[in-house]
């Protein structure tokens, strides 16, 4: 699969690195005990530490430290026993301290990697440079008043994990897969709620283009994207913009950009021109963070089964394809549902692929139409498992099963009840099917003649008519066999 982008003159390679900001799922902030609850009254969760009143001192939240370590373990990364908090200095209305407490030279987590899976079954590793802990800033509202900006400091001081990737990403699609993978790992670990709409997970995208084999080009950074769709749009727009400039003989100016979600375009940020000089230095209010190896070892043991492990299990034990397995495991609640279906009956292990198809096609579309999360599915995993078994045992056909599934969704009843009540049990009695076939052949004598004179395609017509007569209940295989025998006898 080639990722090259065609310009008017040349082919170009996009080079992308992502900085993902993931909010730690904690009750209180990184250095103060105010609440992190989303959607509270403006400025109601701002302690004197968060408001940077003189004399206030930060005290670190040990839980946030543990969550950062767990996430590092989940990213297959080194955990650093020694890390340091630094001040990143800049002025902005939503940053009362005049600096953000972050980690610069000595982050809590070092190099790691995650793997992303493509539709064709191949996968690719994306290297992680580091993960560090830092404070979030407040929220500014710019569009409420022509001359004022309104500031809410509730978010100020909330713990963020910044996850920085190497520039290993080569397309918008890969960027989407990468952020989905990080999100899924965070949600399995339960260290971040992964809610992109509420801003719990957002990304800055560093992007440049080059002709294959050349050195990296000058990069631009697109700030603060909070949906996978926007990330992909922004990358595609920005890559084209850079290619156009370069092909016309221009040069790319290193810039910080904003993405306008309405117009789908990027534009340079105006206000932080002077902000690139952050003058990092160790925060004198905070001693270095030293972590005992025993704490790390204990956290390693607490790590739950992660998406890649589940994926391996699905591929090796249930014979699923790499892609099917990655679709299932991307969302923990989907994977949990699938596990419950499979575990509800030992015989279903051999039918895993059929179970996957029912979940990802029929069940997903029913859930989507009704805007229901899979965790609250009206069809329980056990009921779905029993339905698949009924198909396997030829009690109902796959076609009838679709109607049964809709009934199950609406009534929350088990499949057996619906099948009995509606008389949907598949017809496997050969005598009955023979009678139906006889009738159909009797009613369509002309067609039978045509068939016998070589129009083989008409077999489908007879199957359809017979099926219709049986109200869809005839076992398709038996029906086919009987039809063929009866027709050959007429010859």
């Amino acid at each position, binding site marked *: 699969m080639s990722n090259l982008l065609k310009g008017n003159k040349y082919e170009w390679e996009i080079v992308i690195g992502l900085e993902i900001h993931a909010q730690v799922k*904690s*009750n*209180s902030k990184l250095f103060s*005990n*105010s*609440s*992190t*609850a989303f959607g509270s*009254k*403006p*400025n*109601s*969760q*701002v*302690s*004197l530490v968060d*408001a940077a009143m003189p004399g206030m001192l930060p*005290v*670190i*939240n*040990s*839980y*946030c*430290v543990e969550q950062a370590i767990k996430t590092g373990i989940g990213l297959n990364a080194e955990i650093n026993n020694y890390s*340091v908090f630094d001040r990143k*200095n800049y*002025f*902005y*209305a939503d940053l009362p301290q005049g600096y953000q407490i972050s980690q610069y030279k000595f982050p809590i987590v070092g190099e790691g990697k995650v793997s992303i899976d493509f539709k064709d079954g191949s996968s690719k590793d994306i290297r992680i440079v580091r993960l560090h802990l830092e404070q979030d800033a407040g929220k*500014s*509202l*710019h569009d409420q*008043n*022509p*001359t*004022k*900006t*309104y*500031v*809410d*400091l509730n978010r100020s001081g909330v713990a963020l994990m910044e996850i920085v990737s190497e520039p290993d990403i080569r397309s918008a699609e890969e960027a989407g897969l990468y952020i989905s993978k990080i999100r899924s790992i965070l949600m399995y670990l339960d260290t971040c709620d992964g809610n992109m709409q509420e801003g719990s997970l957002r990304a800055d995208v560093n992007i440049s283009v080059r002709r294959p084999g050349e050195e990296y080009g000058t990069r631009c950074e697109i700030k603060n994207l909070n949906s996978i769709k926007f990330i992909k749009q922004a990358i595609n727009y920005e890559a084209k913009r850079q290619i156009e400039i370069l092909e016309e003989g221009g040069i790319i100016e290193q810039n910080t950009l*904003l993405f306008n979600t309405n117009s789908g375009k990027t534009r340079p*940020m*105006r*206000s932080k021109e*002077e902000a690139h*000089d952050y*003058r990092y230095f*160790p925060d004198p209010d*905070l*001693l*270095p*963070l*030293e972590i005992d190896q025993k704490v790390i070892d204990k956290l390693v043991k607490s790590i739950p089964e992660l998406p890649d492990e589940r994926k391996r299990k699905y591929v090796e034990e249930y014979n699923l394809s790499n892609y099917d397995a990655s679709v299932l495991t991307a969302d923990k609640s989907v994977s949990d549902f699938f596990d419950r279906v499979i575990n509800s009956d030992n015989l279903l292990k051999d039918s895993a692929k059929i179970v996957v198809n029912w979940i990802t096609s029929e069940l997903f579309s029913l859930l989507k139409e009704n805007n229901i999360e899979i965790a609250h599915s009206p069809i329980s995993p056990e009921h779905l498992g029993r339905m698949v078994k009924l198909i396997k045992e030829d009690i109902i056909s796959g076609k009838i099963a679709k109607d049964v599934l809709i009934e199950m969704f609406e009534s929350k009843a088990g499949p057996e009840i619906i099948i009995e009540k509606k008389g949907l049990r598949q017809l496997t009695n050969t005598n009955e099917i023979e009678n139906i076939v006889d009738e159909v052949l009797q009613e369509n004598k002309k067609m039978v003649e045509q068939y016998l004179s070589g129009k083989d395609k008409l077999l489908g017509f007879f199957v359809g008519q017979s099926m219709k007569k049986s109200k869809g209940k005839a076992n398709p295989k038996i029906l086919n066999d009987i039809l063929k025998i009866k027709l050959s006898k007429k010859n």
Partner: protein
Amino acid sequence: MKLDTNTINKIAKLARISLSEEEANDLLKDMNSILDWVEQLNEVNTESVEPLANISSSTLPQRKDEAKDINSSDEVLKNSPDKLEGYFAVPKVVE
């Protein structure tokens, strides 16, 4: 290391301090003499010495993840020269 007025002006700009030319010149003199004074430390050979982050033997104190309901709006907005419906109102920062 010697500073020049450009550096002084850049530092002032980063710190959002406005300086007259005279003030900048005074500060240049002061800061250079401070730097000279600190530079004496370079006379000590520190090649095999780890940087010292902490002179006490204490470690970073940590707290539990417990949130306190503080309902701080009134108190935290008390010093604000301008506010609206619980928000700080500041001169427009254009984005």
